[in-house]
C-alpha cells in the first residue's frame, strides 16, 4: 500500500483540513511534524516540497502535492469508495459537483480570509503574547455576519452547505470554526439557529474530535 505522508503541524488549520479528510476516510498516514515556531516551513528541505513555504505538504506514493484544499479534493476522489463519502451523492453529475464547488469557493474567498483574521487576532496573537486589536475584531466580525447570514438562509433549505449530505464544503470550514468556538466570536454562530446546529453537527464528528488531540 502506498505510503501517505503529511508534512505539517497538528495545530495549523490547513494541516487539520487534510487530517480531517484522512480520518474521515479511515486512511493510514504518517504526520511528519514541521516546527512552525522554528521557521522550518521557510527552509529546506520543506521548501522543496512547497516553494511557497506553507504547511501542509503531502505525499501519496509518487504523488507530491501542497495546498490543503487540493489535497482534500484528491483524497475525496482517489479514495471515493472508502470511509465517508466527501463528494456529493451523485458525484459524476457535473451540476451536483458544481454546487459543492461553489461552496468550496465561498469558503475560500468569503469565509476563510475573514475567519482566519479573527483567529489570528484572538487566538494566535494571545498565544505569542501580543495584544488583540479589538477594532480589527469588530471590523472582521461585521464581515463574517454577512457571510453567516447567507449560510443561515442556505442551511434552512439544506442540512449541509452543499445539500443533504456532509461534503468537502463543510469539512473545509471545520478547523477554523473550531478555533473560533474558543473566542467571543462564537456568539455569531450561536445567534443563528441553523448555523448553530450545523456547527454542532460537524464538530461532533469522530474525525473532528480526533484532530483536536
Amino acid at each position, binding site marked *: 500500500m502506498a505510503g501517505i505522508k503529511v508534512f505539517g503541524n497538528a495545530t495549523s488549520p490547513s494541516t487539520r483540513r487534510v487530517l480531517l479528510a484522512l480520518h474521515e476516510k479511515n486512511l493510514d498516514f504518517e504526520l511528519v511534524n514541521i516546527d512552525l515556531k522554528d521557521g522550518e516551513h521557510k527552509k529546506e528541505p520543506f521548501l522543496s516540497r512547497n516553494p511557497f513555504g506553507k504547511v501542509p505538504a503531502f505525499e501519496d506514493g509518487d*504523488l507530491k*502535492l501542497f495546498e490543503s*484544499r*487540493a489535497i482534500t479534493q*484528491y483524497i475525496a*476522489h*482517489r479514495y471515493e469508495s472508502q470511509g465517508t463519502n466527501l463528494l456529493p451523492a451523485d458525484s459524476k453529475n457535473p451540476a451536483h459537483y*458544481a454546487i459543492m464547488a461553489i461552496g468550496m469557493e465561498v469558503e475560500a474567498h468569503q469565509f476563510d480570509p475573514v475567519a482566519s483574521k479573527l483567529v489570528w487576532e484572538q487566538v494566535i496573537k494571545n498565544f505569542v503574547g501580543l495584544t488583540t486589536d479589538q477594532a480589527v475584531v469588530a471590523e472582521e466580525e461585521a464581515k463574517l455576519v454577512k457571510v453567516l447570514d447567507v449560510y443561515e438562509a442556505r442551511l434552512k433549505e439544506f442540512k449541509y452547505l452543499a445539500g443533504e449530505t456532509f461534503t468537502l464544503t463543510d469539512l473545509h470550514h471545520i478547523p477554523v470554526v473550531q478555533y473560533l468556538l474558543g473566542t467571543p466570536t462564537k456568539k455569531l454562530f450561536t445567534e443563528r439557529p441553523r448555523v448553530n446546529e450545523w456547527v454542532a453537527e460537524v464538530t461532533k464528528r469522530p474525525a473532528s474530535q480526533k484532530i483536536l488531540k
Partner: protein
Amino acid sequence: MEDQKMKLHCGFIFSNWTAMFGLHEKSLDFELVFVDWVAGEARTKTFLSNLNPFGQVPVLEDGDLKLFESKAITRYLAEQYKDVGTDLLPNDAKERAIVSMWMEIDTNQFLPLASTLIRELVTKPYQGLATDFTSVQENKEKLSEVLNIYEARLGESCYLAGESFTLADLHHLPPIHYMLKMEEEGVKDLIYSRPNVTAWVEKMQSRPAWLKTVVKGDHIFELMKQRRMPMQLDSPCQEVTGLAQKTAMVTENT
C-alpha cells in the same frame, strides 16, 4: 424542446473574463447579460435572491442551474462539456490533483496580490478613489517572489500542471492581461523580466478563445464608459446615457 442558450451575467472585473474564456474554449454559445456592479446592479433584491447571495458577478445560467464563483463555473464547463471544444481537465486523478493544486495556488498565492494591484491601479481610479501606493509597492514585491516560483515551474513544463493547457493556466490570464495594461512602473516588468512566464503568457494570448474573450471584455468596458464618466471634483458630473439601457444587452457569440 428548444435548447436554451446559456446566460452569463457579466460585469467589469477580470473574473468575468475568466468565465468567458472558459465558454469560448468550449466553443459554447451564450448570451451576455451586462451587470453594472459598480452602480449596484449586483446588490438588488432580485440579483441577491435569484443569482448570487454574495452580490457578485459572474453568474452562469445553464437551464435551471445557476452558478457563481468563477472557478466553480469553469470546472462545471470542463466537466459538463468534456467532449466539446478544448479539454480543460485531465481524466487521471493524480494529474487532476496537480491542476487543482495550481488553481489553489492561484486563489491563495497569486490572485490576492494581483487583484490588489488591479483594485488600486484600475478599479479605484475608475471610481474616482485614491490609489494606496504603499500597498501597491508591497504587493509588487510579494508578487515578484511568487512569480519567481512560477518562472522555475514553467522551466520544467510548458504549462503549470504539465504539457497541456488546463483550467489552472486559464485562470491566470485575465488578471495578467490587466497587469500588462498598467502604466505603473515595474508592473509589466514582473511578467516581462521572466522569460518562461513571458513565453507562457504569449502562448495563451494567441489562443483563438482568448482573442474572442478580449473582444467581449473590451465591449463590456465600453458599456461601462457609456454608462457614466468618473466623478471629477473640478468638472461638472456628466451622466452619459446614450446607448446604455437598464435592460439586458444581448450579444451574439460568434
